[in-house]
């Protein structure tokens, strides 16, 4: 992009990060008492809330029921004030439906759905403030919420975005980088087995560059996994102190 230098000659990004550096991640589990599981995450200026209800009986039409596993139902929405320009509708547009579908696919790969036949698990995510990497923030928040709900999961699902600027892969893109760099890869990883739950790339990228970008994103996902693990452990510690165990 003309006028906006995404990577300086010294190798620093717009917000002063190095190419492989993540934004500050802060998260908390169990913020809502009414839901079965809930979590909140901040990745830099991107803020997301995730709430999990279930496993419960399938709501609505019974034809959705699966006899060998649970149905995962996701809804992605953005607060109308979350973006710089006000959004008219929080959900229901094409982008949100696509995001909902991606989330569903990601969590179908991670949750042990065969343990809950004929039931349904609802995952609702909401972006409160958007500054790039919405998908990854949602996945990370939803992972924590699923864990908070006590639903068995194969591994933490960690997601991170990556881009490619001046022959250097950048991870955890902010909004300016996401719109300016052209390429953005979203990757969700189950770090323990190194399994990729979702991979998505919208713009074009030379095949030779795909490997380093994916490698960078996977490394970032692994570090995010450690952060999420820390959050879960801290939460459990706090809860066990409260319950006096």
């Amino acid at each position, binding site marked *: 992009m003309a006028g906006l230098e995404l990577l300086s000659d010294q190798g620093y990004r717009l917000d002063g990060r190095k190419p492989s550096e993540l934004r500050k991640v802060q998260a908390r589990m169990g913020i*809502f008492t009414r839901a079965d599981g809930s979590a909140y995450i*901040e990745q830099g200026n991107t*803020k997301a809330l995730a709430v999990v209800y279930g496993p419960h009986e399938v709501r609505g039409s019974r034809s959705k029921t699966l006899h060998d596993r649970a149905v995962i139902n996701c809804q992605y929405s953005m*607060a109308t*004030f979350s973006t710089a320009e*006000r959004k008219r509708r929080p959900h229901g547009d094409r982008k949100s439906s696509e995001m909902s579908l991606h989330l569903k696919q990601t969590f179908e790969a991670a949750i042990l759905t065969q343990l809950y036949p004929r039931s349904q698990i609802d995952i*609702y995510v909401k972006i409160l*403030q958007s500054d790039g990497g919405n998908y990854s923030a949602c996945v990370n928040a939803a992972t924590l919420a699923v864990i908070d709900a006590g639903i068995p999961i194969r591994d933490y699902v960690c997601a991170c975005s990556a881009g490619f600027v001046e022959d250097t892969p950048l991870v955890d893109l902010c909004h300016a980088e996401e719109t300016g760099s052209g390429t953005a890869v979203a990757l969700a990883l189950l770090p323990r087995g190194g399994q990729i739950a979702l991979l998505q790339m919208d713009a074009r990228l030379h095949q030779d560059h795909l490997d380093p970008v994916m490698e960078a994103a996977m490394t970032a996902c692994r570090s995010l996994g450690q952060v999420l693990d820390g959050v879960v452990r801290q939460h459990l510690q706090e809860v066990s102190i409260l319950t006096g165990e």
Partner: protein
Amino acid sequence: MATVQICEAEKVYIMHGVRDDLRIDGRACDDYRHMEVETDVVSNTDGSARVKMGDTDILVGIKAEMGRPRPLIPDEGYLEFFVDCSANATPEFEGRGGEELGSEISSTLYKMFQNRSSLDLRALCIVPREHCWVLYVDVLLLQCDGNLLDATSIAVKAALFSTRIPKVHVSEDDEGGKELEISDDPYDCMRLQVEDVPCIVTLSKIGHRHVVDATLQEAACSMASLIIAVTHKGNVTCVRKVGGGSLDPESIFEMTETGKRVGKALHAPLMKLLQEEEVLGKRRQKVGFLG
């Protein structure tokens, strides 16, 4: 609608408690639950606030955009309300499920501000007939545990208090055309006078008495409620009866009196809290959702 189903025995228990002025969570009939208010929680809005009242959790974001004044009132800006009942609050709100409740709340908010004394909208006018500020007040329900209207109105008032609208300098060129220049200095901004913004008090009739700030369980015992918007001086700007049951005129009178008294008492601590937050400014420890 966000409701719970409770059995007959529970209803009787709650109604007997209300009769003796002792509710299930230990409050008296005209007590509010513990409330937490925080402003400036979403940094890409012009003003925002989060209110927690028991388990009811509401986030309000305000964005100012430039628009054209309404032809009938050319020298005023206006407010646009939107209530998003997100599926986070309850799975019933998934898809279009929350729209009905959302439009009900937003229409009450429109009514509440539909008078000159609530908020001076003339301050939002930039050039009469041509440009004005439109404040998009977006309410997000994060968790519902009864009494959504009261919590929403408090959150709206707090968010309006924290709203900073950039100043606009109007200059005229030779041919009479106007040029607008929006100040890019974050401190060169305009604040709204929110002193007179009313707060809603919802009174639910339970048995022969009425309670304020009903929880979901209590709301399930109540057949009808009265919504009263009260300013800090005790002026009533809006009264509405909601719910399936009916009320006799005498109890409406009683409820209005309680509503006025409780509503008046609600404003002073709220304004004090908002002003304390204001004084702390940047030194304030932001809690948000991480606290």
